[in-house]
Structure formats: C-alpha cells, structure tokens
C-alpha cells in the first residue's frame, strides 16, 4: 500500500490530474491550515479544485454557494462521473420531498452546492446548524459587491449565515474582481484578515482582434470569410437566442462541410447536454451560443472566440475569452462591432431591473393584499406572472421588500409612512444600478473603440503589470487574422443507418477528426 503524503498524490488519486495549475496549491494549503482566503484566479485555471480537494480531505461538510444552477448541476455531474459520490446540489428545482430527504441526511455528504436563495430558507439553516461545516465557499464572490458586474443582493446576507454557522473557514473565489471589488468582498464578509491570493487575468497566448462593420450583413460576410479560412474549434457569442439559431442556418448554408450547432438557455436539457458533449468530443466545429454556454465547459482546445455581439461589461468579455486556449496554445478573440450594436445592451440594461411602473404596481398589489388580509402567493412564478416581472426583477424587489420588513414570511406589513420612504429608496437604487451598468457598458464600448494596445487597456484596471504576448498581441499592434490559415479535410458521413448502428454498438469508436485538435 502506498501512503499518500503529498497534495499532488491526492490530486492524482481523486481527480486524476497530474499536477496543480498556478495558484491552486497555495490556496489549498492555506485553506487546509484553517485560514480564510480570497482567491482571484482567471477563468479556466481550475478554481473548483481549490475547494473540491479540501472538501474531500477535511472532516465534515463543505458548502459551496453558487449563483448559477446550471453550473452547479454541471459540477455535480462531473464529480459523479469521476466517481466522487458524496456530492449534492440544493436549488429551487428540487421537489419538496427530495429536498427534505437531503436535509435529513446532510451529514452523509462531503460537498454541498447551494444557491444563495436556498441558504436563506429556515429549514436549510436549521439542518446546517446541526452538522459540522468545515469549509464555507463563496463562488463567483464578485456578486457580493455593488460594484461588481453581477451584483446579487442575496450574497449580502452571506455574512449572517457564516455567523450562524459559527464561522467555519471561508474561501471566496472569483475570476474577475478589480481591487475595488476585492475590498468590497472582504468588507461584506466581515473578515479583514483574509489571506489574498491574486493571480493575473491576462492571457499571453491570446491575440485580441476588433473589426468594425457597418451593419449585420457586413458582419455575416466577414464571419463567413474568417470561418472559411480559419477552421479551428470556435465559439461564437450572441446576445439573443434567436440570433444563435439564425446564424447557424446561415453558416450551414455557406459552410456545409463544417459541423455547426447552436446552444442557448431555451433548449431542453437533453439537447443541451448533447451539444456540450459533442463540442467537448470534437464532434462539432463551431457552436453559436448565448452567454449560457461555457460555464463549466472544460474544453481545452478552443482556438477562436468570436463576439458577434459584444458583452455588457469588460469583466464578462474577459471571462468569455478565457474559455479559449486553456491548453496554453495560441488562440484568438475576434469582436465584430457595428455602431448599431450599442442599442442592444442599452435595452437589456433597462429590462434588468424593474421600472417605476412595475414598482408602483408591486406596491399597489401588496396594498390590496394587506387590505384583504391575504398572504403573498408561495409560488414565485405566480407573482412574476401577475406583475409581469422576470425572475431577476422579482428577486430584486423581494430582497428590498423583505429587507425593509414590508414582507415577512409571505405576510404583508402595511405602514403608510414607511412605504412611501421605501418606495423612494427602491427607485433610487434602481437608478443608481442602472447608471452603474451604463458606466460599465461605456467602458466596454470605449475599449472597443480605443486606438492604443487592446491588451494593455483591457487588463490595466485588474493588475499592475501585464505580460508580453507569446506570439501576436492585438489588432491595434498590427495583428490580422488573415495572416493565418488553417483548414481541415472534408468529412464523409454517408453510410446508411445500418452501418452507423453497427459501428456505434459493436465497432471501434467512431474516430473524430483529429486535425482540429
């Protein structure tokens, strides 16, 4: 029997990784030593190992707070595929009974993924208080900061949870946090002694290209030219679901020899798994997607990330291009920009928070409920439907209404004077957040239109020194995509179903075209 004595051996035995990536070991050592840690690691550097490994080694339960249900599910699936079984995700999609069952035997698990909303539920907190929590992890910790690009009000309540759980060691992780956001995280968690491990965001292996187009037709033309001459595993980001679908149609028409599919949040679960896994398996060349794609995607050989629509802030852009070239090889980010594109995110910002009319209606609705002495419906879908709010808008309102004691456990508490004040306060917050988002958007647009080095201007607010690029820098430093050409041979897929069935069930694995690797 071999005695496992180094972290590397645990990493190999449990997760089958040969070695740590930059930053992982340092963070894990501090966590195991009982420190509170703030870790800023760029996308694709394997943040999750920083808590997954300690979770397996520490006695008791590790809680991971994560804002994205799909991300949780992906991670649980992946861990289970690796034979790590004592893992569970708790979110609002679980049936009531199922949740109860999980809470009753929480102590049998090592790792619990949970949404911040679930962490506010009384039964969940009661169950957690009864067991030993050895590590409390806050994933996407920038959500805690009002200045972060994805502020989630529920994250602000995490410090109370940590207190309730008697201060287990805490690990806050993020891929994108400016120094200001880092300070905010530490402040909100009330842990001034957190050990900071900050690693640079910049990717020396990526070349940044921005190309301007007059309109969508011109963009489409350019897209076709690039994909025709530069045939590598590619992700193309769009701001809407319908745009991903229509672009796939267009591409298939003109590039019939490439394997192309779309991916967005509106697809059914089974189709989503198929597309993700085909792409991972090199059965697909190009995926047209919304920002729903990519979370938890572990494909190492993406060579080209195109933004047909640019994201609403620099932080999202950095995360999305972080999915390219994870193997360290050369890769390209291409942003296709036309002046009219600016209107899309402006509209999206407007829809993100409830507007004045919605807030007014919400107050009116609550007032009627209180007059009739009725409870707020327990079904969130019903509330959202009745008031025509989307999920994010309702979450926002719910947080503020509860914070001000207007809603307590589904009861409406009426007080005329207070309500007027609260109303004004919420309107102010909405305006403030909208302004902030607009500033963020402006930052992104300014970057796209900047004439100096794209690499320097992209990363300078995140870090003081920026590394030299491995090969090419950016389009402002003279790099052009047309300098490069990669093509792959034609595929043949004409056998009849009988042959395909046979090779699937009996044959040797269908070889995927290796040229793209």
């Amino acid at each position, binding site marked *: 029997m071999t005695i496992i004595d180094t972290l590397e051996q645990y990493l190999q035995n449990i997760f089958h990784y040969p070695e740590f990536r930059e930053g992982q070991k340092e963070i894990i050592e501090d966590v195991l030593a009982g420190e509170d840690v703030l870790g800023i690691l760029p996308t694709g550097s394997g943040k999750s190992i920083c808590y997954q490994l300690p979770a397996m080694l520490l006695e008791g339960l590790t809680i991971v707070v994560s804002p994205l249900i799909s991300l949780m599910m992906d991670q649980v699936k992946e861990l289970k595929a690796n034979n790590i079984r004592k893992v569970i995700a708790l979110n609002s999609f679980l049936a009531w009974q199922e949740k109860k069952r999980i809470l009753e035997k929480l102590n049998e698990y090592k790792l619990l993924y949970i949404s911040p909303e679930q962490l506010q539920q009384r039964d969940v907190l009661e169950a957690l208080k009864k067991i030993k929590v050895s590590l409390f992890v806050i994933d996407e910790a920038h959500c805690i900061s009002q200045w972060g690009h994805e502020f989630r009000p529920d994250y602000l309540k995490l410090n109370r949870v940590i207190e309730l759980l008697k201060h287990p060691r805490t690990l806050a992780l993020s891929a994108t946090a400016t120094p200001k956001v880092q300070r905010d995280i530490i402040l909100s968690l009330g842990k001034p002694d957190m050990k900071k491990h900050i690693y640079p965001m910049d990717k020396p292996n990526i070349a940044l290209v921005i190309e301007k187009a007059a309109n969508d037709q011109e963009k489409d033309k350019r897209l076709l030219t690039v994909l025709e001459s530069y045939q590598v595993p590619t992700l193309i980001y769009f701001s809407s679901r319908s745009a991903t679908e229509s672009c796939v149609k267009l591409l298939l028409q003109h590039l019939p020899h490439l394997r192309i599919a779309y991916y967005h949040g509106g697809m059914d679960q089974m189709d989503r798994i198929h*597309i993700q896994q085909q792409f991972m398996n090199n059965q697909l060349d190009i995926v047209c997607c919304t920002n729903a794609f990519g979370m938890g995607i572990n494909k190492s050989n993406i060579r080209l990330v195109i933004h047909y629509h640019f994201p609403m802030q620099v932080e999202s852009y950095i995360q999305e291009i972080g999915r390219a070239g994870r193997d360290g090889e050369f890769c390209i980010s291409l942003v296709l920009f036309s002046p009219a594109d600016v209107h899309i995110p402006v509209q999206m910002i407007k829809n993100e928070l409830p507007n004045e009319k919605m807030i007014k209606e919400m107050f009116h609705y609550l007032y009627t409920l209180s007059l009739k002495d009725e409870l707020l419906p327990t079904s969130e879908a019903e509330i959202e439907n009745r008031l025509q709010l989307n999920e994010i808008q309702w979450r926002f309102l719910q947080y503020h209404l509860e914070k001000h004691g207007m809603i307590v456990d589904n009861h409406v508490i009426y007080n005329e004077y207070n309500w007027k004040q609260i109303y004004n306060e919420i309107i102010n917050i909405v305006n403030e957040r909208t302004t902030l988002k607009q500033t963020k958007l402006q930052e992104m647009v300014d970057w796209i239109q900047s004439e100096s080095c794209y690499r320097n201007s992209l990363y300078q607010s995140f870090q003081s020194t920026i590394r030299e690029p491995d090969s090419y820098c950016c389009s402002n430093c003279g790099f052009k995509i047309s300098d490069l050409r990669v093509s792959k041979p034609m595929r043949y897929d004409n056998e009849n179903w009988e042959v395909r069935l046979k090779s699937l*069930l009996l044959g040797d*694995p269908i070889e995927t075209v290796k040229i793209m690797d």
Partner: protein
Amino acid sequence: MLFESILITCFSYINGERTPSSVYHILKGKRSIQTLQDTHIYKLESFYGIYKQLKRQDFENRIVKLERAGVLKRYQDSFIVTGTINSKLQEEQLFNGLTFYNKVEIFYNRLLLLIQTLTNTKYQSYSFIPVVEDKEAEIWVKKVYKKVKGKEKDVLKKLYLELYEVLSRVKAVEVGIFVDRLTGYKHYGMSVPQLGEKYKKSVDDVQLILVCTIHQIIENVEKEEKTSLLAFLLQDTLEVSHLTKSAYDTYLLLLKGKTPDKIAFVRRLKTNTIYDHIVEIALSDSEFAIEDFVNQEDEQAITQAITSTNSYKLKDIKANVNDKISYFQIRLVLAKKNRLHK
C-alpha cells in the same frame, strides 16, 4: 409536414365541437377526465400524449399558420378543416399513444442510457456525462450493469441484432433519426434541432418521428417472444404497475374518461372507495392531473397550510383551510407532492 397533418386530422375529428385547447391537451397527454373523454369520444386514442414536449406558444403559432394558409377556419370557439386535405399520412396510422402512454419515456431513457453505459464500460471508460437525466433510468441501468459487467460485448451484440431486426421492420419513417440520436463511446448523439437540420425536417416532426419509431419498436417487441433484451427493457415500465388490483381497475376506467360516481356505479363500490383509489393513482402516475378534484385556488390554500403548519397531519392541515375543503382533496394534494416518481 407530419405535425401539421396530425393537427389537421385532430381538428377534422373534433369537427368544431371542442376548443383548440383540448387538441393541445390530447397531444400533451393530459391526465384529466375531460381530456381522456375527448380522446375517446373523438377517436383520437392513437395521438394521445404523443408530443409531450409541445409548448403552448408553438402550438398556437402553428394553428395561426394553418389558418392563414386557409386550411383551418375559425368556427365559434374552435376551428374546422376547410382546405383540401390530402389523405392521412401513413405515419399517422402507426402511432399508439394511449396504449404506450407512459412506457415510451421510460423505455427510451433506459435504452439510451444502457447503450451509452455499456459502450463506454466496454472500453473501461467509467467517467462520462449521461445523456439522460432520469433517476429511475439511472437506477435501472446500474442494476443491469452489475449483472452484465465484463460481458458488455455479448450484450451489445444481442442488443444490436435485436435493434437491427426491429428497426428493419419500422415503417414509413426515417430510421436514421432514431439511430443518430443514440450516444455511444466518445460519440454523442445528435440534438433534435441538429436532426431537423440533417433530415430537413421541422423540430416538431423530428420529435414525432422519434415517438412514432419508438411506438413501432414497442409494438413489435410486445408481439414477439418475451425473452428478448428489448422486452426486458420494457418490463415494469408502467408507473402504475405498483397499484393494487382494485385501484388499477379504477385507473383503467379513469383512462376511459369515466367520473368517480360512474366508476362506483359500474364497479358496485362506494364512491369513497374510488376516492381512495384516486389518491393511490395520484401517488403513482406522475402526470395525473388532480385539478378535476381540487381547483387551483384550493390546491394553493392546502399547500400554504402544509407549509405554515410544517406538517403532513391531515387534521392539522384541515384545521388551517377553508371548511369546504375535504380530506380527500388534502390527500390528493399531498399525494401530488409526494409522488413516487420524480
């Protein structure tokens, strides 16, 4: 094409006597007395529940299109068929909706997951992302896997021969769609939109063709000897197979669209006994619509009472709701919440 054709057939059968909603519910396979009655009255048994993924919006859009094309014409609250109708497509005759109602999903999920598992473990590949998210199917495949471990090659060979045989007998539809959807070792199957692209068909038609293929497979397998591997995949596929004999008899009558009073009369039992059966059925059949017996408002009141009392005790719950809500209704809501499946 297929989807439109089926819609036209449905509307021509109901002949303006039912709203479009009832057609929608029949295709989705809603387990309510009204829908089941409609299904029988208008002889639409073969289409019952054949398109569970259908979304309301898509259904409505499609009808608007058919109306614009002059095939359907508004008639009171519904539509009648006016356009020239080609004779029914051959595929349409091959559906067996009501009979295979909840066998389809279980059988198909087991098959997909079994093929994915065995083709992987054959190559000692034990970490893969399952294409199907279905706890029941997962447990089932795990059980089978334990039995056949090490003999994957033989099992796959048998499975191949049986599938080949049964697929060769499938009529009218493109079998390739079914085959391309399968996932094996290092090869993930195609998504529905991808299949649509490859075979130049709408997403609706791809879904329907898959169901039509599965119906034909099940039909053939059930006719054959019961020792085949595919027949084994079909064992215990009925969620309601756990029902007591008497409840099962009630269930069959409910599927015919009979009301509890009628069933009590036919079976010479007390209505309360039938209510007991219905609670049992609601617990087993994950798609059973309880709204025939509890309206939404009452259901919500009961749910709220359960949450606020934090108890399953009927008495506690009853004390916290309106007097007109019966114990039967509370039991039904509890049954829905505690479904054995899902």
